[in-house]
């Protein structure tokens, strides 16, 4: 494309030029912006006002071996992370995560985050699932927290510092494409194309370095703790470019979602001593994880809960949930340490946790998989080739510090550690690199996508398709999966994709056309659900968040490796094998040889 002035409008498309463009203003995006903002011309494109990002929903805490309340060190933390991830964790990355955790927490404190305090005035810490002292001997207090709104405080603190630094936000701009330019036969990212919600106009952001921090995609499921807006746009954009996605079969189901609603009750509740009980009141986790009981990692607890219900020990009229008993904690602890979840239970279920156990069931919570990156947050185009200038961090990325199952509090840590790394590395890169020229008509794809949907004469309702997808995923690709159930989902997705061609957009306007964007988001959801299911079918073992009823055992001989999925054909083809190809990537093992996971 020819030269343009920054801010120019050519053929109705706005053109901007920045050294670093960050897509997403959740924890990861803003942590990156705090590094990049002052050092390079930086823009943050976000489809939500930054403070609306789902990082704000995180409750429990952020892990770091500060050892403020008891003996602890980062090496133990690394071990727990590796073991928690069922050994599918890249151990070099986990080491970085645990080591840099301490600075990450102190950085946040110094930026103003109001952590809860110990009597000595230091940052207080609490217990959390899977975090132990001395390689699994006993639970350790490692999670730094601010009541049960740690994520809220992180999001606010990061936003506050972005305000301080005058970071350039483009709020309510939906990134819909990353522009690739062929340079010497190789695809190089040269910019991002975004749709401005307020006006319906299209913006092209040319950039030297691009960071994706668009969060998760829990909305492929019906029951989820994730926000309506977590539709995996960023991951979908990368996928459509033919870049790989890693470990997509591993989705975490958090044990304690409010039954039927999916709204999360933090694991911090169990950290403070709450207990899971079945219909007969039995503390069933004692049977499954005798040492750490209710504080076993999430995959294990979720599985046990589903099992209890499946075996007829569920509570309630339909025997379809178990109970989280906080009644013995006392009003004081609930009101001061867990005020928000106490309120959630009261508001949404009419149940007062102070006097009554709360109905809970697993809820789709966290995508362990995503855009593969190395420890510098650089995006990979295969097992080890870096895409220059392209970065990813946060839930949309897969460094793999979480392996097949993320430990609670390690994600808020992940977004801070790797968000910071992404920001710094992007700046370093932008300092030396030149702009990659934009191709001719860089906005063409997005314009086509938007116009085609807007002009659709179809009859299918977006909401109906989305609901079918989500119901099907909940039914057949949730905590327990089999080849048969997954095959069904694949079929459903194929059908839905056919019907998606025929959707109708009722809002034909340009301003705040959320109807149109929901349609686009559904497109991403369909793509990602398919990768999840396809990868899951291919992994014929049970590990971490991926539990195959037909292959209940972990199989290290065959599957001690990461899944890498590529889009290689027309997604509409009936057989997923025609358009998705899978590959493997070895797991980085430094200190810890895989062992059986017992708690």
């Amino acid at each position: 494309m020819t030269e343009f002035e920054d801010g120019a409008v050519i053929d109705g498309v706005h053109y901007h030029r920045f050294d670093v463009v960050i897509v997403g203003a959740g924890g990861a995006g803003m942590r990156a912006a705090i590094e990049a903002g002052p050092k390079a011309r930086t823009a943050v494109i976000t489809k939500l006002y930054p403070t609306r990002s789902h990082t704000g929903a995180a409750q429990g805490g952020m892990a770091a071996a500060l050892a403020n309340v008891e003996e602890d060190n980062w090496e133990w933390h690394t071990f727990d992370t590796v073991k928690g991830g069922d050994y599918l964790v890249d151990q070099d990355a986990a080491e970085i995560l645990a080591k840099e955790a301490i600075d990450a927490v102190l950085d946040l404190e110094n930026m103003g985050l109001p952590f809860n305090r110990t009597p000595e005035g230091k940052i207080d810490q609490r217990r959390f699932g899977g975090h132990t002292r001395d390689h699994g001997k006993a639970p350790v207090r490692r999670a730094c927290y601010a009541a049960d709104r740690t994520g809220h405080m992180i999001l606010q603190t990061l936003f506050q510092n972005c305000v301080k630094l005058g970071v350039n936000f483009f709020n309510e701009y939906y990134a819909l494409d990353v522009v690739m330019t062929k340079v010497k036969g190789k695809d190089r990212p040269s910019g991002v194309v975004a749709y401005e919600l307020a006006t319906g106009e299209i913006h092209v952001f040319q950039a030297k370095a691009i960071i994706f921090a668009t969060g998760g995609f829990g909305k492929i499921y019906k029951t989820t703790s994730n926000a309506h807006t977590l539709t995996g746009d960023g991951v979908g954009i990368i996928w459509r470019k033919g870049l790989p996605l890693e470990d997509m079969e591993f989705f975490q189901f958090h044990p304690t979602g409010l039954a039927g609603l999916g709204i999360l009750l933090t694991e911090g509740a169990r950290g403070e001593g709450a207990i899971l009980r079945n219909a007969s009141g039995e503390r069933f986790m004692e049977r499954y994880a005798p040492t750490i009981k209710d504080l076993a990692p999430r995959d294990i607890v979720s599985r046990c809960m589903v099992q209890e219900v499946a075996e007829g020990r569920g509570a309630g009229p339909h025997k379809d949930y178990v109970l989280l008993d906080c009644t013995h904690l006392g009003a004081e602890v609930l009101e001061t340490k867990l005020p928000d979840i106490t309120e959630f239970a009261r508001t949404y279920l009419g149940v007062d946790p102070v006097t009554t156990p709360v109905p809970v069931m697993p809820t789709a919570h966290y995508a362990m998989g995503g855009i593969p990156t190395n420890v510098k947050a650089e995006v990979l185009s295969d097992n080890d080739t870096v895409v220059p200038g392209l970065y990813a961090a946060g839930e949309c990325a897969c460094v793999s510090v979480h392996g097949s199952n993320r430990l609670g509090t390690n994600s808020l840590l992940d977004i801070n550690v790797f968000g910071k790394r992404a920001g710094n590395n992007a700046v370093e890169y932008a300092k030396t690199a030149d702009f990659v020229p934009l191709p001719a008509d860089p906005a063409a794809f997005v314009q086509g996508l938007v116009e085609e949907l807007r002009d659709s004469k179809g009859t299918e309702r977006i909401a109906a398709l989305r609901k079918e997808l989500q119901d099907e995923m909940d039914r057949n690709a949730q905590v327990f999966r089999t080849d048969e159930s997954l095959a069904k989902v694949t079929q459903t997705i194929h059908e839905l994709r056919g019907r998606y061609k025929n959707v109708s957009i009722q809002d034909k306007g340009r301003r705040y056309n959320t109807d149109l964007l929901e349609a686009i988001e559904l497109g991403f959801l369909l793509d990602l659900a398919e990768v999840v299911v396809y990868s899951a079918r291919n992994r014929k073992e049970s590990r971490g968040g991926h539990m195959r009823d037909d292959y209940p055992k972990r199989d290290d001989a065959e599957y001690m490796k990461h899944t890498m999925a590529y889009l290689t054909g027309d997604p509409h083809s009936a057989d997923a094998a025609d358009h998705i190809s899978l590959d493997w990537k070895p797991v980085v093992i430094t200190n810890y040889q895989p062992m059986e996971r017992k708690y």
Partner: protein
Amino acid sequence: MSEVASSEGTAAVAPVAPIQAFTVTLIIRRFDPEVDAEPHWQDFDVELYATDRVLDALHKIKWEQDGSLSFRRSCAHGICGSDAMRINGRNRLACKTLIKDLDISQPIYVEAIKGLPLEKDLIVDMEPFFESYRAIQPFLIASDKPEKERIQSVAQRAVFDDTTKCILCAACTSSCPVFWTDGQYFGPAAIVNAHRFIFDSRDEGSQVRLDILNDKEGVWRCRTTFNCSEACPRGIEVTKAISEVKQAILRGGPDLPASDLTSEAVLAG
């Protein structure tokens, strides 16, 4: 784990009431900037359950009846602050307002919050709101660079706990009669966020913020109408915070608890 305690536990869970749907009428104030000169009301009938929230009702309308209905939402459980709107004459979050708490023999009126420029249907321009927020310097101002964390006692942390809960939803500011008539007023949300730092013992910029709020459009504009406190979905005692800021200005600085760590530590031990 005794059988007794636990069976009690199960019994105590209210049996799920027989699920019964009923038809609720929502009257929504619509405005499409590309077509309408003025906003107008439009009725919708929706099948709902008692446990549904107003947000669910809006979604049902958007997804089943009229896809052009526009509103903001994200988290759906009251922590992102996207969906403040005026429901039956009061500012609330749609995702935290349960149908069963409203009188459904009457239609439910839903309209955009007031005082900010209306953009479309239930969406307003939030920029002026965030501008006030930015103007009070909502970030920690501290000169030292400590080796580890800054020390803060439990009591010092407690004085500003309430105001750290703000999700910037604007329910308060857009419920304030002063703000409706004077858009230049900083508004309760900005003051709440100033309070959060003014009363933070680690902060050194309280004087700056107190000066900013000691302005024509600052705290003195507040007429203690308490609409903000009643509207706040986070239960923040907004008027109290404003009042504390006024006192701090009069006194020339915030009244902070002394860092009395040793005795506290002893007490705790």
